[in-house]
């Protein structure tokens, strides 16, 4: 399939010409050139012989297997098995959103569970605790307040309807002892 002419079409163009894949008017121009150029004529003839050889090469006859019975009606693919094509930026954004949500949930879960309560640290080293409902877990409240801070004064506002009862040794005094190791 070698040709010498400088103005000859390239090999892939001649191959496309043999396949009828060159569009008008170029196909006519190539046909005229092939008529006139012995090298291209031989190349086209060689390509033709090759195509013919491939076409008449014996191949086994296909044995059509019976159609599988379940193929009569195609079951729809369940949603969870369907593939979703997602552009890369969208996939990255979704992954980031999931990560952010996870971090936020972890932060919320890690916080001390003190409902109905707000703790405010004042500028003069005071800490104000406002309790809006009866405290069920006094131990946890005191542990939270015991965490290191610069507060020198601690004010706890209990709800007006709080009812404190004395059971055995006064519990408030004992918890105050526990807090910061300071005796009141």
């Amino acid at each position, binding site marked *: 399939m070698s040709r010498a002419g400088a103005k000859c079409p390239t090999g*892939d163009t001649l191959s496309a010409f043999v396949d009828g894949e060159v569009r008008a008017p170029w196909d006519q121009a190539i046909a005229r050139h092939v008529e006139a150029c012995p090298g291209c004529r031989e190349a086209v003839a060689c390509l033709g012989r090759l195509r013919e050889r491939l076409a008449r090469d014996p191949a086994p006859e296909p044995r059509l297997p019976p159609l599988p019975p379940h193929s009569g009606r195609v079951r729809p693919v369940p949603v969870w098995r369907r593939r979703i094509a997602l552009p890369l930026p969208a996939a990255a954004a979704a992954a980031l959103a999931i990560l952010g949500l996870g971090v936020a949930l972890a932060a919320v879960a890690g916080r001390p569970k003190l409902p109905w309560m707000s703790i405010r640290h004042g500028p003069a080293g005071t800490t104000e605790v406002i309790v809006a409902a009866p405290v069920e877990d006094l131990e946890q409240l005191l542990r939270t307040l015991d965490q290191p801070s610069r507060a020198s004064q601690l004010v706890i506002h209990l709800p007006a309807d709080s009812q404190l009862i004395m059971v055995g040794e006064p519990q408030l005094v004992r918890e105050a002892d526990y807090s910061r190791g300071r005796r009141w």
Partner: protein
Amino acid sequence: MLHADVAHVYETLYPTLFRVAYRICGNRSKAEDVCQETFIKYFERGEPLPDLEQTKYWLIRVLRNLALNHEKKRSRESKAYQRFARNSRQYTESGETEVLQEEARSLVQRALDRLPYNLRSVLVLKEYADLGYREIARVLGISEGNVKVRVFRARERLAQLLEDDL
């Protein structure tokens, strides 16, 4: 998709797919396996394709990917077999079968098998699936220009391999 549609697609396109699979795989049993897998994928597909032409392109695309997997597997097996053959002089049944299959293959098929996969698949689609360059480009996801070049290179190599037979 009704049974009649599926049966029509199956009976109409199976011979073409088998021809393509055989020329790519070079072996009847592998070609049949690839065709079966391709049609199973088609049956599992929920939505029907608009027409027979689109179905043909879809099936050929799937078949070509499956054939590529078989090709990789065959290459791995062949390397492993060669390693084994070097280390041992024992003849195994599969080795004998392979020799018989090799002898049964035609000269053209043996020449096709020696082409790199990306050239062979394009030429097979051109010669045995009756696809034009545009359709091949769509099926393989490459440009028409690329198809033109690959077809030519495949023919060039094939002509060298079959020099005495042309």
